[in-house]
């Protein structure tokens, strides 16, 4: 393990100042991904600033019906919070299907949004990887890419965004609150995740040393009945092949309101806007669901080993929407 400095701070301003001081410094929250990557020499910080003592771990139910989740709230606490379970079941479901119980007890919500990709080439420092080493190439393009993305890809990077809960947050139009040298910002979550394009090393629009303080979710009545369905090879402790966060309101047999986002298939948590547009005003039936799914996935760029995800994602969307219309969700 490469030697690095470690500091523990108790207030946000000190943390921000310390990280901003050097390009090679970084925040350390739960550390469930970061410490692995430091061990694997993928991340090479000079200083890790431990922010776990910052008072950012509350889950607040807002009077509006929304929710404000502190950046340091642990995944397991958020999953069990009454306001989350009642108002946004898809968030609770997404959290409980992510990682393992041990990791959820440690991993923070802000860290979850910042987690790095699981692409094995990114994590192996001897492989070419544009995200880790810009300009070195992408081994996944022609390599073992079964788990890789089919949406939002570029010829520089096809790594899948691994988060489950971020998929639900994207479906719910959450807002990421940050604090940096220029004060506080509120970033719509869809803008918080950048497509790889030509700069896969840039994953978020954050300045160096800008700290996530909270995630705010606006009141979303249709989310009271929502689902997060995750499909994977094994029953637990695996990233999604495809996952779907969905909420639906049907009035007079037609879709009146819908939220749909996909995990496991995009280079970012994927809001399925085409599918949403396609569904509005259509009969809440399997045929409409399948058509909407087909439209969303028509944008896919599959590779030989992950082409199955195009079909799998469509069937997963249909399953999620059918689950909601059948009243099987809560």
């Amino acid at each position: 393990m490469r030697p690095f400095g470690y500091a523990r701070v108790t207030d946000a301003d000190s943390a921000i100042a310390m990280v901003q001081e050097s390009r090679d410094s970084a925040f350390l929250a739960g550390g469930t991904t970061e410490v692995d990557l430091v061990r694997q020499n993928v991340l090479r910080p000079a200083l890790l600033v431990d922010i776990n003592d910052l008072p950012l771990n509350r889950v607040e139910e807002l009077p509006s019906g929304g929710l404000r989740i502190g950046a340091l709230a642990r995944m397991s606490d958020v999953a069990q919070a009454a306001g989350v379970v009642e108002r946004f079941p898809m968030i609770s479901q997404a959290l409980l299907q992510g990682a393992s119980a041990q990791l959820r007890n440690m991993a923070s919500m802000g860290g979850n949004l910042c987690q790095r990709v699981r692409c094995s080439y990114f994590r192996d420092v001897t492989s070419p990887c544009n995200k880790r080493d810009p300009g070195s190439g992408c081994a996944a393009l022609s390599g073992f890419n079964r788990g890789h993305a089919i949406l939002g890809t570029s010829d520089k990077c096809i790594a899948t965004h691994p988060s489950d809960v971020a998929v639900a947050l994207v479906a719910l139009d959450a807002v990421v609150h940050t604090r940096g040298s220029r004060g506080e910002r509120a970033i719509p979550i869809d803008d918080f995740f950048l497509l790889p394009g030509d700069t896969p090393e840039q994953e978020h629009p954050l300045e160096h040393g800008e700290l996530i303080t909270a995630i705010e979710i606006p009141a979303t009545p249709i989310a009271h009945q929502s689902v997060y369905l995750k499909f994977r090879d094994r029953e637990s402790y695996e990233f999604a092949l495809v996952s779907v966060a969905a909420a639906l309101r049907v009035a007079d047999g037609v879709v009146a309101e819908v939220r749909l986002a996909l995990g496991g298939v995009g280079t970012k948590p994927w809001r399925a806007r085409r599918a949403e547009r396609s569904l509005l005003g259509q009969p809440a039936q399997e045929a409409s669901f399948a058509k909407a799914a087909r439209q969303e996935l028509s944008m896919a760029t599959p590779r030989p080993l992950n082409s199955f995800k195009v079909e799998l994602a469509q069937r997963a969307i249909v399953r999620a929407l059918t689950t909601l219309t059948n009243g099987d969700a809560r």
Partner: protein
Amino acid sequence: MSGFIGQDVSRVEGPGKVSGSARYSGEIALPDLAYAEIVGAGIASGRITSIDTAQAERAAGVAGILTHRNLPKVNQVPLVPSLMGGPAPGETFFPMQDDLVHYAGQPVAIVVADSLERAQHAATLVQVSYAESPSVTTIDQGRADAYIPEKIFGGFVPGQMQRGNVDDGLAGADLRIDAAFRFAANHHNPIEALTTTAAWDDDQLTLYDSCQGIKAVQLTVAALLGMSLSKVRVLAQYVGGAFGCKAMVWPHVTLTALAAQYVRRPVRLSLPRGQMFTSCGHREEQEQHIQLGATRNGKLTAIRNHKISVTSPFDDWAEPAFGVASQLYACPSFEGVHRLVRGNTMTPTFTRGPGEALGVFTLECAMDELASELGIDPIELRLRNITDVDPNTGNPWSSHGLRECYERGASRFGWAGRNPKPRSERDGNWLIGTGMASAAYPVAFFMHTQRARAHLYADGTAIVQTATQEFGTGTATVMTQVAADGLGIDLQNARFEYGDTDLPTAGSPVGSNGAMMISAAVHNAASALRDQLIALAVADSQSPLHGTDPARIVVSGGRMAVADDAASGETYTSLMQRHFMNDAEAIGSWDPPPLDTPYGLLTFGAQFARVAVDADLGIIRVRHMTGAFAPGRILNPRTARSQLMGGMIWGMGQALLEGTHMDTTLGRWANASLGDYLVPVNADAPDVDIELIEVQDDVVSPLGVKGVGEIGQVGSAAAIANAVYHATGYRARELPIAVEHLLAPLRPDLAVPRQDAQPTAR
């Protein structure tokens, strides 16, 4: 006998493992211990053009760095399986003897520092430059150059075998099945990584090594380093799982010894998980092409199976796929051929049910297909082909039990009344299917003489010793039971001591042989000591047993007495005290029956699985598994069941999850981590139901023990694949069976164009 054998005894080493007092090889505290880290080759084929260690040498805490430039030359030692009792290197190649690179991850340098983290860091500072040459790492790349080896599996199995005339058998058949299967490579991945701690005391070497055979380690390291066996001592009490990857002795063990010699202090090497994929063998990527011929009433006329797989540049290694497959059923003809592709990988090795697990998978999937074609129940088809003799030799089975396995397994599972039609049962979104397969695994007699020492103190307590190790199978527990029964003392008065090459010789427990061969030696040692003390008693005029026929004396609770008169005798303690004996001791040994023993030697079983397949999404979950096995005498039903259950779940992993995939551009495994190499987790583990069928076997060993090490995995994957067919109508042709294989067959109505360029999708 007092009857501890066969009792449900909890693990004697359990409290130590649970409390943490049990020390594994990586937990041995030695003064001045240093830590080693291997630098693995970053290319699959080529030559090292330069190694710059200057920066690494300057790093904090570094004690020394070895490369091919300064590592001493070692002896060349042939690859012979450790079971046979000689030196057993995992591959004939030894790294860092020259500048050639044969496979990715091959050790090119070993860095030693005063802490693990410092060694890891310094290892990243070693700069290696290569001249890379083209590599071959998959069957597809090397298929054109495949060859049939004379011998495989460490030179003790012929590359091909034949019985009768398969062409005639196929030509004369009413029905033929022809199916080709692809199997991903597998890695063992025990949770305890391979770990060696090496310490020199002058010219004496002590190794603490996580292995399946301390004697094999002693023999191998001594042979490679040209040392006297008396100067190499190997210790390993607790080993955290093995599954075959600790059966052979891999280069890192000797490298650690050489590193300790170089830095003149004890050195520990624990392989990082990533290097577990390039340091201790694997199950080779393989394909099998099976052809069956059968009569209209289901009698087999021919079985042909051709296998092709990837081996290393140095060794003709293929796991033998046709032992069980050629013996399981009455069939006039059989042909099995192994073909090999030389690839840039390390030499593959024994992996959970080596060879037979996949050979039986192929046969049992083909049998299921045959049953469907003929409209015969799968069990009935097997019963029509069951044989009471080994079809290869005509010899009777040493013990059988396969019929009982079918019957009792089927009854427990609820097989009767099964609707054979695929897609005939549904539970919400899930298609439900059931499948079965036969299981069998060889009982092999390749081991050398096994020895144990029994030592009884005058207070009535005993230690029984042999040079084996506990790698999670329950050896320490069952041998305590065997020792107590052999001596006729209570279980709490017997202690089984193991894990040191200074103890009497035992072979490596591999190939499901551990319980059979070690129990034989332990039983014989304990019995010899009992007989010695009985002889003393009957010759002693002061003993109440004076003049009694020794054959009439039984011992129980440490008291010798005439069989039907418990009050008649005296205790070991009183006898020994009267003779001023502090203790008594005996060595027991056991030689296996000869290789040409006129019996067919297999352990039999039957496997059943119920699966659920998501009707749209192709997700497969196993809901229930039943296994019925006839492994001879059961020493301890609890540890036996645990091993069998583990095997069955490994079979599930093989069927549905496990696969190591080669990146042919980089020439190395693309998913070398436990995050990417999937094994079943608890949430996947179904309800596993096990039936133990005791068969008496007077051939295999004094106690009639056959073994449960591997039989649990054999047939398990086939039962699942057959259940997937029953649920969906889809015949799996590739393991692991994946979502992508099922999407099109499940919904042929959704004819979405697919881009599958490569058939191997996992």
